[in-house]
């Protein structure tokens, strides 16, 4: 029975999504209970598995497609890290979306694809082999497109076009990399990695480069990042999910799998691929931050901030040392919590006060105190103010950089912190210290749009404060990394 847990977890988002497609627009109660129910069930299953996996149990389900090609679902500690994040944030985003959309058109379609998107993300987390990973990765691309173009107007259609223009070629690169590697090394399962000893280094480098293109597109690695700011045309809940868990994180998660569980750190280091990847990630970190400085729209500034922040994860992975890896993995969770807070708040500002531009933020702190407090917490976390989430990440990445013999990483982190401060502090200043042209107080209601932001904001403080406990993201990633390095 417990064998089927991974399948049940997938079903908990797939089944509600499928039913939702067939609901009428006015069946609000049924639609909401289906989606919230699915999210709650999923969270329950995951909590159960967290305890099991902590004791060292693993679950595996295998389904043959062809001789030699199979779908493999496997629950390990890393899968659970990503899955817990996505399940938790899905639940909160569902609450937020229900309140945010209220009675806007095409809701059944929206929640259907929304559920599919989470289904695909969960599948990515659960994938135990490269081929399985690819299948869910593609499903994610496909289920995201309808969300990006949800508004059906010219801007969102253009954003959708750009998204596919990047995603489709990247998927070809990824598929080619996977099939090429599997042709040389046989089917690759993450649990044992690939046997690369017989393959010549040049071929391996080309395959690795193909992986970087295929995964880097979703992770918004420069120069494959331009689709992300454009995708801001999507409604706020979509942006929140896209930036915090679904798409960009799928790319970053793929990097963790490919570097650690497919090639293995030794091979990556021996081929001399770690440092170039770390440099590319550093470039993205700095470039994203600099571009963020120049944006005048709130959501666009946040988008470039994502471009920059997601590369912290890739930097941690590429540095190929235990501490850096902890820093990278923990940022997968930390960035998710902070960024989703910021996007929830940006959504509330837009929806309740019509604020989209940074210069409209003047004095909003007094008028919308809850939203503004959450936004401020998220922004301070991003800058890396101790003891918040972002600080923990940066410490580990910095020490990891020294450990891996790349002291320049400290410089990148310092520069990035300054830039983060430079593009977030003016916002905080405007929110709290400028006087507002108008005095009316836009209501921060219903609770559904504000409570999720409060929860994630508090969580992003808590994961920093309680980083030392066992079940904090930091504790869990330490467990993952210990298992990797001391098998």
């Amino acid at each position, binding site marked *: 029975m417990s064998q089927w847990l991974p399948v049940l977890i997938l079903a908990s988002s797939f089944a509600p999504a499928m039913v939702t497609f067939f609901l009428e627009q006015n069946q609000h109660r049924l639609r909401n209970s289906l989606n919230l129910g699915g999210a709650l069930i999923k969270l329950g299953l995951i909590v159960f598995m967290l305890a099991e996996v902590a004791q060292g149990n693993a679950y595996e389900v295998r389904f043959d497609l062809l001789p030699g090609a199979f779908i493999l679902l496997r629950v390990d500690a890393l899968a659970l890290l990503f899955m817990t994040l996505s399940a938790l944030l899905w639940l909160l985003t569902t609450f937020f979306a229900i309140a945010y959309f209220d009675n806007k058109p095409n809701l059944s379609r929206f929640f259907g694809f929304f559920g599919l998107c989470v289904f695909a993300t969960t599948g990515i987390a659960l994938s135990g082999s490269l081929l399985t990973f690819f*299948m869910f990765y593609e499903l994610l691309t496909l289920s995201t497109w309808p969300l990006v173009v949800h508004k059906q*107007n010219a801007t969102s259609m253009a954003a959708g076009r750009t998204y596919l223009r990047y995603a489709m070629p990247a998927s070809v690169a990824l598929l080619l990399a996977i099939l090429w590697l599997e042709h040389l090394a046989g089917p690759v399962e993450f649990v044992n990695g690939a046997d690369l000893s017989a393959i010549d280094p040049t071929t391996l480098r080309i395959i690795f480069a193909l992986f970087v293109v295929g995964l880097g597109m979703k992770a918004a690695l420069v120069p494959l990042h331009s689709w992300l700011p454009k995708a801001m045309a999507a409604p706020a809940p979509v942006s929140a999910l896209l930036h915090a868990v679904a798409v960009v994180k799928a790319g970053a998660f793929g990097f963790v799998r490919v570097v650690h569980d497919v090639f293995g750190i030794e091979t990556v280091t021996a081929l001399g691929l770690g440092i170039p990847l770390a440099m590319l990630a550093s470039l993205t970190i700095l470039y994203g931050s600099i571009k963020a400085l120049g944006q005048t729209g709130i959501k666009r500034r946040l988008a470039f901030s994502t471009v920059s922040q997601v590369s912290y994860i890739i930097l941690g992975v590429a540095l190929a040392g235990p501490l850096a890896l902890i820093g990278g993995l923990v940022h997968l969770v930390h960035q998710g919590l902070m960024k989703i807070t910021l996007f929830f708040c940006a959504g509330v500002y837009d929806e309740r006060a019509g604020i989209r531009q940074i210069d409209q933020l003047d004095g909003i702190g007094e008028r919308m105190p809850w939203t503004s407090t959450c936004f401020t917490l998220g922004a301070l976390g991003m800058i890396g103010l101790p003891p918040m989430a972002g600080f923990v990440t940066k410490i580990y990445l910095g020490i990891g950089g020294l450990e891996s013999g790349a002291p320049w990483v400290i410089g990148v982190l310092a520069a990035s912190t300054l830039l983060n401060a430079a593009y977030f502090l003016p916002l905080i200043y405007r929110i709290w210290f400028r006087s507002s042209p108008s005095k009316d107080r836009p209501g921060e209601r219903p609770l559904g749009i504000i409570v999720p932001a409060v929860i994630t904001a508090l969580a992003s403080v808590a994961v920093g404060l309680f980083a030392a406990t066992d079940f904090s993201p930091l504790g869990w990633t330490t467990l993952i990394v210990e298992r990797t390095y001391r098998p």
Partner: protein
Amino acid sequence: MNWPLIALVLTISLPLLGALLAVASARFGDWIAGVIAVGTLAAAIGLLFFVNAQGAVTLAVGGWAPPLGIQLIADGTATLFLSTTALIMTIVALFSARSILRRGRNSREMHLFWPLLLLLWGALNAIFVSRDLFNLYVGLELVSLASVALVAIEGSRRTLAAALRYLLFALTGSLLYLLGAVLLYTAHGTLDLGLLAAQLGPDDGLALAAITAGLIVKTALFPFHVWLPPAHAGAPTPASAVLSALVPKASLYILLRVWFDAGPIETASVAMTFLGALGAVAVLHGSLMALRQQRLKLIIAYSTCAQIGYLFVIFPLAAAPAVIGTTGADAAWQGTVFQALSHALAKAAMFLCAGLIIEAVGHDRLDRLAGTARAMPMTMFAFGLAAISLMGLPPSGGFIAKYLLVNAAFDAGAPLWSMVVLIGGLLTAAYLVRPLAATWRSPKDDPNELPPGFVDVARRRQLLPMILALASLALGLFSLLPVTLMGGRP
């Protein structure tokens, strides 16, 4: 009772019998077709499971084995084609019942459509189980004639011109094929593929070239594709579905049988590379043409030209010296059959979707389709699923085909051929996103607005293309049974 043999006989005789009945009592063509469809579908699926359990079913007609008599053989691959055809035909029959009937029980369409459709079905099934060049020729001629007549059914000046062009190409193809068959008969004294297998050599080059040329004209491989788009786009939509999904597969099926059952592939590597190259150009050219079309049915028709190209990559792969006797050859064979089947299902689904859109909106011009996805979500969802299969994205039969073909290309030491499939998938995405985006868009940016002049279409009928699209996905998820049935390279 020998049930497998009965099922085999029924798959051919039922549709032909139905065609006769539909001529005799044209007023009840829809009822006849319905009953026949259910019967043939059951026979085909029954046969599939028999063959899966017990191996190929062979029927020596009249009790005479070759070379004296004619043999019908239903092996795994044949039963897959029979079942896919049966599924598509049944859905198309259900779909057409309404649109043909609308013209009246005594209309021209009623008199022509059902007999032609059933005749086409019987002829297709005969091709799938024949292993004799003359039998195959008869099947091929029946298929071509029924198809041409289906294109011409509306009788407008435009469709007649398209039908005439189609007829000319089809006849040329038949003549070339016949020439080759006659040459082979003169040289070897038999037309049975199994007997020819041991005898073909370099001296038969001309004969094989004639047969191949004839068949690629009928398959609409570049540069012989010019008849296809106007014919397939001009025919009534249910007919387009069958014509695009199944008819080119029949001639391709014969081509595969000729080369893989009997032909000396390994010694003809230059010719095989040439066929592969034509396939690659077909993918490129068909896709670029599809990108430039403004009408939905034309996009789908050009997409057929492009997708046919994939089916020819097998020839250079099977001829590569590195691949002989390896699993790569099997992968190439299976990938090609998967592509043929999943394209058939997805393409039929797509044409039926186009038919529903035309019924609802009255036209298929992309620039005026805004709001359609909102008005008929189920149809566009089915279209999207079919598109996934054509793009070769997981989980779909198209993806399995792509996976197998790319693997085969690596095994053959010729990874460049994998680019045909990979880049082809990219191009497919490019031209299929256009109709998806065009229908998704809201008219006047108002998400509640419906397309102008929209007439609602029953949910029941929107379900029909959905079934086909889901079948093409299922082919990719439950691919173990089909792959076992296909077996390795013959």
